[in-house]
């Protein structure tokens, strides 16, 4: 065996807004899993909101381009491609990066603005979604090799989210947006079953500013998706976008309220971010993956109670949810 020095893959780790503010444990899970996979994550000092494609791009493209370019320029200083965990951030940063590398006029405009704060967009890095890093950069086989235990046929409703695959032209999925398979493959190598459900590629309901603007329409989307998942016999929902996660998690509580009379019973699907399940299958401890919620925490994510399902899963893996919960309370106090 030769001992060639292997340079670990490196990425500028872009957090966005929803994860730090709503789902900080997703950042924890992703950091730990990527570390375990030998990926170096460089923090992006001073990164701001991406800004959100639905809210900003729809109203003010120059501002959207400029703020996006500022974020990309931080990764350029890092000399490492961007990895984002959020579909919305991916949509913005990828599109901004693409437009500015291909349109000199826009680049000149943006660089005039950035000059005021001593920054410059050079177009020297790529923007990647966590899914692309896992599936393409590291490769599905690396993930398969890293998995040490199976999650026992857990029936997952995989939700891709819109910006991950559309518009397909500048995304790395070979033009596939109607019936992609990469996320399902990533879920299935964990020993889970990705259940086929209708309208899988449909929006969660949150994006495009709809959640902020017309909540009832937004939740009607969510209601339909949840019903389709229930019809297909899913046990939980797996996402790779924190905004979809919020909509499908908190949204269940909301749907159970406002659509009480239209649905056949309240929904209670635990919603997991992909790296939480990946870490578990890689043999990592639930504490490292943000899977244990203190019993005394109310009104904070995750909103849907995950305890019943996790108790079942943990039993097969040799953990006791209740005990871990008690330990975590002690550890904090």
């Amino acid at each position, binding site marked *: 065996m030769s001992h060639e020095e292997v340079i670990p893959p490196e990425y500028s780790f872009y957090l966005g807004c929803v994860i730090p503010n709503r789902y900080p444990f997703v950042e924890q899970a992703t950091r730990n899993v990527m570390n375990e996979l030998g990926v170096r994550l460089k923090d992006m000092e001073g990164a701001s909101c991406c800004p959100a494609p639905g809210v900003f791009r729809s109203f003010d493209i120059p501002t959207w381009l400029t703020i996006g370019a500022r974020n990309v320029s931080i990764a350029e200083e890092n000399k490492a491609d961007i990895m984002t965990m959020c579909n919305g951030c991916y949509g913005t940063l990828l599109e901004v990066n693409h437009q500015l590398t291909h349109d000199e006029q826009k680049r000149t405009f943006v660089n005039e603005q950035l000059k005021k704060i001593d920054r410059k967009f050079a177009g020297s890095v790529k923007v990647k979604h966590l899914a692309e890093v896992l599936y393409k950069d590291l490769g599905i086989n690396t993930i398969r090799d890293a998995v040490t235990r199976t999650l026992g046929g857990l029936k997952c409703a995989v939700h891709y989210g819109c910006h991950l695959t559309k518009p397909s032209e500048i995304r790395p999925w070979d*033009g596939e947006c*109607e*019936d992609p398979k990469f996320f399902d493959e990533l879920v299935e190598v964990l020993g889970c079953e990705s259940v086929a459900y*209708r*309208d899988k590629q449909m929006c969660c309901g949150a994006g495009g500013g709809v959640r902020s603007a017309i909540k009832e329409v937004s939740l009607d989307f969510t209601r339909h998706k949840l019903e389709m998942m229930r019809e297909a016999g899913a046990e939980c929902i797996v996402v790779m976008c924190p905004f979809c996660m919020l909509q499908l998690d908190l949204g269940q509580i909301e749907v159970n309220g406002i659509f009480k009379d239209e649905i056949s019973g309240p929904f209670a699907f635990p919603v997991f971010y992909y790296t939480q399940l990946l870490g578990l299958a890689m043999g990592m401890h639930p504490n490292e993956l943000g899977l244990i919620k203190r019993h005394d925490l109310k009104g904070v994510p995750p909103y849907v109670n995950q305890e019943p399902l996790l108790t079942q899963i943990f039993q097969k893996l040799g953990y006791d949810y209740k005990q871990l919960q008690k330990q975590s309370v002690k550890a904090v106090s």
Partner: protein
Amino acid sequence: MEDDLKIGVYLCHCGVNIAGVIDMDELEEFSKTLANVSVVKQYKFMCSDTGQSMIKDDIKAGLVNRVVVAACSPRMHEPTFRRAIEGAGMNKFLFSQANIREHSSWISMNDKQGASRIAKDHIRMEVAKVSKLEPLEPQKVKVTPSCLVIGGGITGINAALDLAEQNFHVYLVETTPTIGGHMAQLDKTFPTMDCSACILTPKMVDVNQHKNITLMVYSEVDSIEGYVGNFKVTVRQKARYVDTIKCTGCGECAIKCPVSVPNEFDLGLSVRKAAYLPFPQAVPGYYTIDMDHCILCGICADPSVCEPDAIRYDDKDKLVELDIGTIIVSTGYDPFDPTPLKEYGFDKYDNVITAMQMERLLSSYGPTLGKPVRPSDLEAPHSIAFIQCVGSRDFHPGRGHKYCSRVCCMYAIKQARQYKEKHPEAKIYIFYMDVRAFGKGYEEFYEIAAREYGITFIRGRLAEVYEDPIDKGIWLRGEDTLLQTPVEIKADLVVLSVGLEARKDADQVASLLSIQKTEDGFFMEAHPKLRPVDTLTDGIFIAGVAQGPKDIPDAVAQAKGAASSAAVLMAKGEVEIEPYYSIVDADHCTGCHSCISQCPFGAITFNKFKGVSEINPAKCKGCGTCVATCPVGAISQNHFKEEQLDIIIRSVLKEGGVY
């Protein structure tokens, strides 16, 4: 010599095509300043009779002895002006055409000054060039009175029959074991509802029996050499493993053959054996053994099975060489494969089929004997939805083609009417973008479908389909853009109206024949309006869907057109070809053989006695490779001699042109 040069420059307005952009008076003044120019004239349409007469009169009056016409592309009118010049008694090679339309006014429409500068450069170059041109005599070559027709569909069949009737010998080459093409797969034809087989099979038989037609099925063109009138074609007759003289077509071999494979004639809806006849009316009617699937069990070769002893396991491909005068390419098309359009679920759901499969289901000699059923339960569907423009009229990359396939509207309406005739209670939906019923009797056919048959037309491109897991019905989701409302409809069977696309081997065929393709992948005609069946390679014609999507009447019309064009050449018996061949200067040739190794056409031989290379003018295509290769500059090419090219370059460089 220079003193004798009298160059006439004739400026064409081409209506407003040129004069609308370029100031013609300024161009006239400019042309007068060029060396050796004696006459400059402008006219609205130089190609008209009057325009041509202006040139002729000046030549006859002795005012000019070299002609430059600044007009359109020489591809368009060089032959016109050459004829005029020749008619006035001047050598037609002392002419040159400056293309100030395509190369100047059209491309620089919004930059009048720029267009004018480019036009001046073109005229400057052509004036310089004609001053060095030499009179040449065109070569005349004989045209062999035989035509090679490639592709035995309805187009090839008609072309072959028309030529054979005029007593020209036709070699009809077809790659599958039978002629008939896609038309043989169709049940009925719109708008007359003629039975396809009933009108096609007699023609197939005529081809087989005609004394002037050599039918070469299960064969492919291997190579083509030579030029108009004198092509040397090698045809590979693929091993059929059946002695075609002994085979009686009894079919015992297929009955006993133990190997079943999907039948391509029925698009996988039925199975055939490894020993097979594609369909009952196949012509010629002898069997073929498909060696890709044959397991060499020997059953069919047993004397009790094949009594005439026609099975030949040791059969081999045969190469046949043919002397051919003209070639007609009628290779047809492939139906579009809808698999990449995931939203239609073709590879996912049993009850989503293509229109070609529907055609086989409707056919009386198809897998269901003309009673369509849906694949999931083999029951007759109570509702059918047709989705139009699948793979057509889509500008998104990777989703098919930009063009309209021209037949799908009509075949969908036809299939819908056929099903409705037998199942009046069935609900039929057609999701369309526009209904293009443009042919003779087509609009009437469409109107009746909607009014009398009660077929529901919904304008809207479908968003997606999904399967009902219980009864395997297909839900269709889209928008009715006329009512501006979302629609969700369930149908027992979905038929994708797939478009027509260029055959997968079109690239190989194009390079084999040195013909061009248009952006859409089909073969390119020499002129879209006036030379629709000619190619830019003399003696080679195209017809049918190989040139672009079209229905049967149009394909047959083109077949007849191509046959007529080929007959013109063969009836004359000889053809003029341009004398642009290369010549070896024997005094300078060192006999190094460099040119011989480089010549792509095998036109150069070595004369051992003289120790020099010699070029056969009839074989030389004037590509100029040998001129560039010769290390001592001993080869020159007629009409493109070094001094002729040199002066063109110098004329622009010296005058500081835009280049």
